[in-house]
């Protein structure tokens, strides 16, 4: 371990980024799903910085009651404050807390990294919302710090929830989808908004993320058994439906639906399809022409041929270097090595390392929301 660390330090030499820490995470028996996602989140710099900031400014709250948020903040603080630049850390408290919190993750079975990410982000939001609510009840005088930051942006979430609180987790990951339905009789367009932390995309063999996103937003016709009730026509009508991105998130998380339920088999099967993802991406399925560019900074990779076993690793871009995190081990890799995680064009391939969750960060920070 120590040797591996020094190897990475040697590889980076004097290019080792100032103040950065590259630490592997110990595996407590099938906790690679957790480790791989944690590394991706740690190297999501705005998220990390805001978490650390939150932690340092809410120290007293953290002492009071342990929850997943404080455990995560504690872990990130632990990593970032290490004296050594590389090494291994045991995310023991976090994993224990996770297992306490959710029975799904309690067993030693192989878990789904996407499910974990989703659970974690929602849990963090819940905790922050509860805290804000408590603070509000405590003293009406001081307003919660996050709420007003993005003032004019708030009304857009109309009808989603009553007075949604925009936490820093939202600001990083939340985007808004709009589900447009056009009645083919009266041409009225009904739009329904929903928020998301990640986009789950259906995949096809030998396709690209661009193409999967296009399919995600392709027009679907509602007819026959599946007609749409038009409020204006007051009856069931044929309609066209499509999903568009109304507000692109700052951090775009894309989940490839590699685990597919096969009815004939009565179980899930892993799709090893080759789906290429570019290092830079733009969303073309937005309501307005956004043209804002995203840059890939992390990939959670599923290793293995089936859904119920295997392993998770992650690729992370930090200060223009790509790193490979495999539980305890951290290695430097060439940017071109990212290509080896696209998937296989043939069904029976020896390569089973497939990109599963992609993390893109928006480059045009001021450009768009």
């Amino acid at each position: 371990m120590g040797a591996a660390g020094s190897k990475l330090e040697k590889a980076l030499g004097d290019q080792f980024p100032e103040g950065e820490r590259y630490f592997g995470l110990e595996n407590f028996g099938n906790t690679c799903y957790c480790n791989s996602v944690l590394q991706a989140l740690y190297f999501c710099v705005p998220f990390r910085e805001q978490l650390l900031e939150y932690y340092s400014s809410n120290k007293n709250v953290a002492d009071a009651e342990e929850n997943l948020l404080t455990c995560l903040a504690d872990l990130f603080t632990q990593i970032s404050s290490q004296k050594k630049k590389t090494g291994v850390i045991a995310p023991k408290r976090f994993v224990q807390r996770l297992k306490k919190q959710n029975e799904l993750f309690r067993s030693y079975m192989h878990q789904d990294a996407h499910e974990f990410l989703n659970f974690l982000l929602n849990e963090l939001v819940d905790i922050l919302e509860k805290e804000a609510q408590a603070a509000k009840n405590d003293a009406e005088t001081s307003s919660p710090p996050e709420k007003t930051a993005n003032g004019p942006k708030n009304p857009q979430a109309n009808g989603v929830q009553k007075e949604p609180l925009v936490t820093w987790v939202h600001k990083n990951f939340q985007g808004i989808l709009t589900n447009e339905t056009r009645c083919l009789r009266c041409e009225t367009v009904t739009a329904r908004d929903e928020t998301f932390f990640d986009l789950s995309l259906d995949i096809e063999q030998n396709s690209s993320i661009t193409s999967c996103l296009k399919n995600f937003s392709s027009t679907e016709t509602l007819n026959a058994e599946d007609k749409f009730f038009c409020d204006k026509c007051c009856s069931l009508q044929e309609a066209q439906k499509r999903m568009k991105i109304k507000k692109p998130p700052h951090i775009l998380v894309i989940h490839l639906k590699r685990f597919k339920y096969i009815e004939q088999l009565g179980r899930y099967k892993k799709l090893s399809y080759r789906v290429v993802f570019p290092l830079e991406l733009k969303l073309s399925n937005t309501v307005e022409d956004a043209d804002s560019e995203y840059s890939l900074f992390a990939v959670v990779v599923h290793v293995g041929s089936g859904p119920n076993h295997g392993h998770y690793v992650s690729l992370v871009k930090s200060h223009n270097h790509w790193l490979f995190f495999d539980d305890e081990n951290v290695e430097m890799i060439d940017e071109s090595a990212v290509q080896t995680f696209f998937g296989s064009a043939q069904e029976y391939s020896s390569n089973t390392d497939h990109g599963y969750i992609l993390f893109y960060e928006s480059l045009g920070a001021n450009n768009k929301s």
Partner: protein
Amino acid sequence: MINTANGMISTSSSSANAQSPGLKTYFKTPEGRYKLHYEKTHPSGLLHYAHGKTVTQVTLAHLKDKPAPSTPTAPSSSFSASSGVRSAAARWLGSGNGSRALGFVGGNGGGKSVSSTSRMGSLGASSSSNSMTNTNFDGKGTYLIFNVGDTIFISDLNSQDKDPIKSIHFSNSNPVCHAFDQEAKDGHDLLIGLNSGDVYTVSLRQQLQDVGKKLVGAQHYNKDGSVNNSSRCTSITWVPGGDGAFVVAHADGNMYVYEKNKDGAGDSSFSVIKDQTQFSVAHARYSKSNPIARWHVCQGSINSIAFSFDGLYLATVGRDGYLRVFDYSKEQLVCGGKSYYGALLCCAWSMDGKYILTGGEDDLVQVWSMEDRKVVAWGEGHNSWVSGVAFDSYWSSPNSDGTGETVMYRFGSVGQDTQLLLWDLEMDEIVVPLRRGPPGGSPTYSTGSQSSHWDNVCPLGTLQAAPSIRDIPKISPLVAHRVHTEPLSGLIFTQESVLTVCREGHIKIWMRPGVADSQSSNSETVLSTSSKDKALLSSKVGSSSYKQ
């Protein structure tokens, strides 16, 4: 939908892109059917561990009877199909197919059951290759040169044999790019660039004459990365009319210019690159050194380079997403621009030098106008990255009888979506969409947007930012055809055909409408080897060897 092969099931959502069968052996265009004529591949038993890491490229090489003393005919470089091809084709097709039966045994790869026989087939092919070589080497012939793993294979374009007639192994590193000089009057005509950065020049004829499996009579450059710290070769090309000069592009963003008539690398050192972000050209300090110049083009890899047919301009595309066009002799940047997003992977010139095609990771085929110095059209139709683009210089527009004032171009593209797309580009039809204005909004005249200076040609020597999606006219493909089961890596137009190649080293030759018809039933037999009744037909052709 159940696909019961080996008990595995593929779902209906995937069936559109299902593995292997279902590939048609023809596709229709307005001018008629293109038919699969021949397939070329390599002995599958030779796949090495490192195989997956290199992508197959294919080069077309036409060896003439004798070194032509005169007339460097219009388009120099590799693709001169001409009448020589036809006569050669006739020769091969005319001969009985008894002796060629072995070629079929290699089969279409795919199933495990085939692999044992295909190894057998490959043995047969290699043993027969010597005699083939001897009959063929100093006659005229058109050859396909392609790299797979650590090997360069050479196939006879016009024979039915699937298997190559020659293989050249590289022990040190994998060959990744190559180029052939059609007009070489003497000496070496074939360039080979390696993953290790090493570069070789050889004589193709000499390789065909030799019976061994090693490169013979080669000149070796950048040995052990002596010039550039072993940065991978990415693209290699002869300078048209350059009297033996050639350019090698590397993954570190540099290009090196060599001269084949000069002795191998002497001491070639170049000044340190002062600013990695800036384009710069450095000349060798010593007159004896080879390479003679280093062009620092960009940060990150140069993925592909291409000379205009007159040799005046050199286009490069790379990891940073920029197309750059240089005046080669002046060593100056003329123009260029960025992709919509992501790296650019390939580029190609029109014959008249007016347009450049690029393809890349935004799934788009871009048409760049040299006159306007900007992107004039985006081709939308690929479902994955665009890995190969080419103009069809043999195609003549139906209204090109001199009266029509519109110039039409035909071009093709291949992608990692396994598709070949054909496109027609009619310049008059392309309307600037900005004039229409977006529905319900005012045109964006924001700073840096292309639209604000649509009418002004961009200043010389500047690079343009990525265009906005609204500002570029879109075109749709004429034909989209799935040609392989693997992602594609390139295509070449010849007078008689379109050639497609996939990353794994399988080549298909699609005869143009009219051409294949005249070549009768023989080609039909070849076609059917890839379809379902393959076993039946190939047993008819060469039953004894197939049954093994």
